[in-house]
């Protein structure tokens, strides 16, 4: 086994954490814990690279190595942003600041060459018009099933939800939440707040709510990552994340890093790919 630290090693580790068919010669448990610990490190500050220890097996060979993730990110597939309409450019700027590579997704084929996807803020009704004229619902459900992470902010959270109210509209159902559109009211009720988002460390995060929805209830499989004002504002179910605020409207890259920082080297490893 030729093991050179960095680029070639990472897909194995990441796919392990994100549950993409852990390859038989990798122990998923160790990968999960190790990478999860690294995520904790991410929260402390947003300095570029950090290291993570992984243990790899091939046959009865065991290899321990320390990867420097900063170097891994540069060689990997981009994060897509669904760009029919909305603040996709703001998400692209945030991804770039986070050291990740954005790309704009407007065609179903674009989903094949990205390692994660953002459904941005904007008008969910407008985005739905585009999603409904081609088989996007199937494509996005397949995308989620492939284990690559999804992040919806505001309108994107509405699209991901299982149930949408006020008024009711169709949605992808990838996240077991009930979400109420324009939950806080109209634009004059838009507001900013500062709050601790525990998974992101001890520095408070600025929450920008613009005609934001409210998550009224979450299913049993949904983890609430942050609450504000008595409502969940950041949730996840496996690799599907949703925020009702707009991290992309701030200079803070921690949330994007948390969701995508380690994911950028997924997609699914090729079956015949050399194991590291």
């Amino acid at each position, binding site marked *: 086994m030729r093991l050179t630290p960095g680029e070639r090693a990472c897909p194995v580790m990441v796919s392990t954490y994100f549950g993409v068919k852990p390859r038989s010669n990798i122990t998923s448990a160790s990968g999960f814990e190790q990478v999860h610990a690294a995520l904790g490190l991410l929260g402390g500050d947003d300095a570029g690279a950090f290291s993570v220890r992984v243990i790899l097996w091939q046959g009865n060979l065991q290899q321990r190595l320390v990867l420097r993730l900063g170097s891994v990110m540069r060689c990997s597939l981009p994060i897509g942003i669904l760009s029919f309409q909305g603040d996709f450019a*703001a998400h692209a700027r945030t991804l770039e600041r986070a050291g990740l590579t954005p790309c704009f997704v407007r065609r179903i084929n674009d989903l094949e060459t990205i390692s994660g996807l953002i459904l941005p803020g904007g008008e969910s009704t407008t985005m739905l018009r*585009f999603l409904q004229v081609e088989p996007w619902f199937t494509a996005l459900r397949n995308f989620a099933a492939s284990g690559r992470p999804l992040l919806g902010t505001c309108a994107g959270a509405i699209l991901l939800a299982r149930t949408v109210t006020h008024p009711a509209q169709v949605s992808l159902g990838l996240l077991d939440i009930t979400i109420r559109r324009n939950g806080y*009211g109209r634009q004059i009720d838009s507001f900013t707040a500062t709050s601790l988002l525990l998974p992101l460390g001890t520095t408070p995060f600025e929450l920008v709510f613009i005609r934001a929805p409210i998550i009224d209830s979450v299913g049993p499989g949904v983890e609430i990552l942050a609450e504000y004002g008595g409502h969940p504002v950041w949730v996840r179910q496996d690799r599907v994340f949703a925020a009702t605020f707009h991290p992309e409207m701030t200079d803070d890259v921690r949330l994007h890093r948390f969701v995508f920082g380690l994911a950028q080297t997924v997609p699914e490893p090729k079956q015949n790919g050399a194991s590291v």
Partner: protein
Amino acid sequence: MNDTQQLMRLKTGLAEMLKGGVIMDVVNVDQARIAEEAGAVAVMALERVPADIRRDGGVARMSNPRLIRQIMEAVSIPVMAKVRIGHTAEAQVLEALGVDFIDESEVLTPADPYHHIDKLAFRVPFVCGATNLGEALRRIGEGAAMIRSKGEAGTGNIIEAVRHLREIRREIRLLTTLAADELMAEAKRLQAPYELVRDVAQNGKLPVPLFAAGGVATPADAALCMQLGAETVFVGSGIFKSDDPMRFARAIVKAVTFYQDPAKVLEACEDIEDGQPMRGLAVESLPAEQILAARGW
């Protein structure tokens, strides 16, 4: 970040959410529903579209709040409404009503011959028209959260919107080539706030989103505006003065999203089938007092 900056971020934040979309003029609840169904990102609620204001003459004022409220209740997308240039009291009425964006618009008859509204004094965001960079920066200095080209509303003629977009973008590009010690003189020439001139010189773009308005009548018109640097397109008379509003609305929405993809813009044009766009007006044929873009300064 202080309170003023926080508020400004909320205002420009909504403008960001409207990017890559189409904002449609509507005069009643039925039209508002058609616009939402077609994929508009927002509607502009008003009593008459610009083409009718132009035809009718007289004084054009803020619309009846009752009509605006009905439209707000009928759709879930943001609702905008227009006030006359400098008419602070009309703007206060619309803010109290809860509209999502106010357009201080040259399409209505100006109320103040000297001054625009002090938009920093409001919690609701404003959009203002501009014909060049200096005008855009003066409006931003007053607190506008979005700039649109003035174009020549109600003509179905794109030439003035193109003129204004090209002028604004050309002046921005020129600014980025200047040395730091040349910017004050340029601010003086532009008659624009120095801090904003410096900001544009550094960033190569306006500090707020730039949208297109005035004369958009076809999907190709909308795609042209986007190619010239607009980030969203207002369509005033172009949809409901066409002979097939739903088809035109959907087609223009598609053309804006895929403005870089001629095959998709072609699809949008073909989606209209036999529909005819609004009848246009040659801007040169308009008497000077009917040139709306000359209103404001």
